[in-house]
């Protein structure tokens, strides 16, 4: 039994987990569900020893433990993170990735290869173990990581959205594998947004909301309405009162997505929030980048009935577009520059800065403070602020709530609604169906660069 007993985790004055008691038993598949920032990854990090609780205890087999990452692995608590590449040695052969380092006593390549092949067989892989791992697709890499976990005698497997970037077939095969592992007595924690997966394989599901447990029990017993309530809470739904779109068409776009080579058309109205849903790698970010002139390919877009010719971001900005990129720290901010300089990066008057910051409820000490010092949510608000000084017509928001705490998220939803009410058009991408339901007038789903009928959930 792997257990959190009345655990609280705080960063500064932000509480990410609040008095949470959580139990993972061997042989069960335990689903974990929650919006971005609800505390899911914090919970996983606590269980795997990556961080230690501010208060409360972590228990392993009935005794309180202080886990370090290495100690957790030694005791059979293995995490398979969403970013599998971070945990793999991509340029080293498969067998060196599978056999865990700690268990090797003498290096005998032939023996290591045999050991690796045995574990790979258990996860259903028949591959050449001398090939570098980097040459295999994601679905195989995940199984290689699970094989490694088995080789370190995994008693508990913590999987962070393992199916998010997989095709439907690969996801189904992975879930089958997890079920067979659970039958062998492995305790599995499964984070996923897909309701069908939760109802199919989990024995228990825990909902996290705002750092607290909102529900714990069988997922199968819940109605769609229950799921919605446990995820976002009733007050969240109240906070967002959607605007009504006008009848005037703002954008008519016929696009080509370069990475997929697919054609996409869509229309967006004045005062409308269009949700673009899809998993990582579905083409959301490409779509946003194409609209903002980052693809370098000529696209057919009309704005208010007039054809546009946008080949680079500069022209997009001039035509009234605003972009909040997916990777805010890498693409959206000048981290070492002050708040003021970041907000004034596009254009605008210095005396308007504090007004915009206040309207977004940004928490900061002084305007000359480097943006690096702010929390994720406040950083995201800075990215938004720079587009609010001057009037924009179209706001392209690429996963704007990723890695943002709950309060900041609510502020962002409110801003989006306010913009729509002012007649702006907002394109809002997310991988979370519930979030899009909450904020968008209409949601289009992407799958490998094409529109498709229904979402992942």
């Amino acid at each position: 039994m792997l257990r959190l007993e009345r655990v609280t985790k705080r960063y500064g004055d932000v509480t990410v987990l609040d008095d949470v008691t959580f139990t993972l038993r061997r042989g069960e598949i335990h689903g974990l569900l929650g919006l971005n920032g609800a505390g899911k990854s914090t919970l996983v990090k606590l269980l795997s020893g990556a961080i230690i609780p501010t208060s409360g205890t972590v228990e392993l087999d009935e005794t309180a433990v202080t886990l370090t990452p290495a100690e957790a692995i030694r005791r059979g608590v293995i995490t398979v993170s969403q970013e599998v590449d971070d945990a793999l040695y991509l340029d080293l052969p498969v067998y060196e990735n599978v056999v865990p380092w700690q268990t090797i006593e003498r290096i005998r390549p032939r023996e290591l290869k045999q050991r690796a092949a045995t574990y790979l067989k258990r996860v259903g892989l028949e591959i050449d173990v001398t090939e570098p791992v980097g040459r295999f697709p994601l679905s195989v890499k995940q199984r290689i990581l699970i094989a490694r976990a088995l080789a370190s005698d995994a008693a508990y497997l913590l999987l962070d959205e393992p199916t998010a970037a997989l095709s439907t077939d690969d996801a189904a095969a992975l879930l089958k594998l997890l079920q067979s592992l659970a039958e062998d007595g492995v305790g599995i924690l499964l984070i996923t947004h897909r309701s069908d997966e939760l109802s199919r394989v989990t024995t228990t599901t825990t909902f996290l909301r705002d750092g607290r447990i909102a529900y714990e029990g069988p997922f199968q017993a819940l109605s769609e309405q229950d799921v919605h309530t446990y995820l976002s809470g009733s007050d969240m739904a109240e906070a967002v009162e959607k605007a009504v779109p006008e009848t005037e068409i703002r954008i008519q776009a016929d696009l080509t997505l370069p990475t997929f080579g697919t054609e996409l058309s869509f229309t967006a109205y004045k005062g409308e929030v269009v949700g673009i849903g899809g998993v990582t790698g579905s083409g959301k970010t490409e779509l946003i980048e194409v609209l903002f002139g980052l693809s370098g390919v000529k696209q057919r877009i009309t704005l208010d009935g007039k054809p546009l010719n946008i080949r680079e971001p500069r022209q997009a900005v001039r035509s009234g577009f605003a972009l909040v990129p997916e990777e805010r720290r890498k693409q959206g901010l000048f981290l070492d520059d002050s708040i003021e300089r970041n907000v004034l990066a596009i254009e605008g008057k210095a005396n308007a800065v504090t007004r915009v910051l206040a309207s977004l409820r940004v928490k900061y000490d002084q305007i000359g403070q480097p943006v690096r010092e702010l929390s994720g949510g406040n950083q995201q608000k800075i990215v938004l602020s720079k587009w609010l000084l001057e009037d924009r017509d179209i706001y392209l928001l690429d996963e704007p709530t990723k890695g943002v705490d709950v309060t900041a998220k609510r502020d962002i939803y409110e801003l989006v609604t306010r913009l729509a009410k002012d007649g702006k058009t907002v394109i809002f991408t997310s991988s979370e169906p519930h979030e899009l339901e909450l904020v968008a007038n209409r949601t289009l789903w992407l799958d490998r660069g094409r529109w498709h009928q229904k979402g992942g959930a």
Partner: protein
Amino acid sequence: MAQLVLKQRTKRFSGIGQYGTLFAILALIAIFGVTNDQFLTYANFSDIIKSVSIVSLLALGVTFSLIVGGFDLSVGSTASLATIGAASSLVLHSQELLVALLVPIALGVLVGLLNALVTIKFRLPDLLATLAIMYVINGVQLTYTKGFSIYDNMPIEGGTAPGRFIPSFLFIGQGSIGPVPFVAILMILFFAGAHLFLTYSKTGREFYYVGSNVEAARRSGIAVNRIKLYAYVLSGLFAAIGGIILASRIGTGQVSAGAPLLMDAVAAAYIGYAVFGTGRPNVVGTLIGAVLIGILLNGLTMWDVPYYAQDIVKGAILIAALGLSYIQKKQLT
């Protein structure tokens, strides 16, 4: 269980990648052999091996730093420092063989520790930090010698230098056992040792883990900083051994003698990436790379290509080697 099984094949890096470097060496030997009747002689091959041995040892040092994800640019100046250290011990201080070997080796290890200090403790980027150390080391040996070379019977204050390059020291770079040059034996021993260490020892494999994914290595309990430290110390050590052989071969302690060897060593290590098509630094590949460069330079000299024009060829080869290794890297991400 049946439908769980996933068989997956990957595209192997094909064509010129896998055995291309070996073919290139054979082709070069054939071309030079046909166009010049002096090329395929024992004397010439003995020459090639002697020059390859020095470059290859520096390249071995660079390889260690590359394996852990670093980069040691100071090997050339470390080799220079080692030649000065050996020459000074022999000529200025009349020391015997053991001291003439230990002094440069200690200097090499010291440079390695210094590189480790700036890259690990101060967290400076490896390329820039070792570049800075390269300058410092170069300055140190120039200051010590006041810019002059050290040679037998050199004039010093109040007469001539008391010591000389003793025969046992000169044997290292100039002697041979039977028909085999002694340096060839040394080179093979060091490379075999390094290869066995990296392939079959636990610590050796840790070098590759650290270079492949530092964070994953740290999380699996590998002492990342200690491994990097080992790599830089080994790099300094092998550069110093290269310097000793250099001093022994030319029989003088020439200032900055090792500087031109740096780029050859880097090129050899990067050609090594491409050998066997693995796309990662490896000892055997580095040796083959050094041999390729040695043969090429020797053949070009025989064609009367002036040394300054040879740099153009070397640069072109380095670009080709880098190109190949980056193509392979790209397939892995």
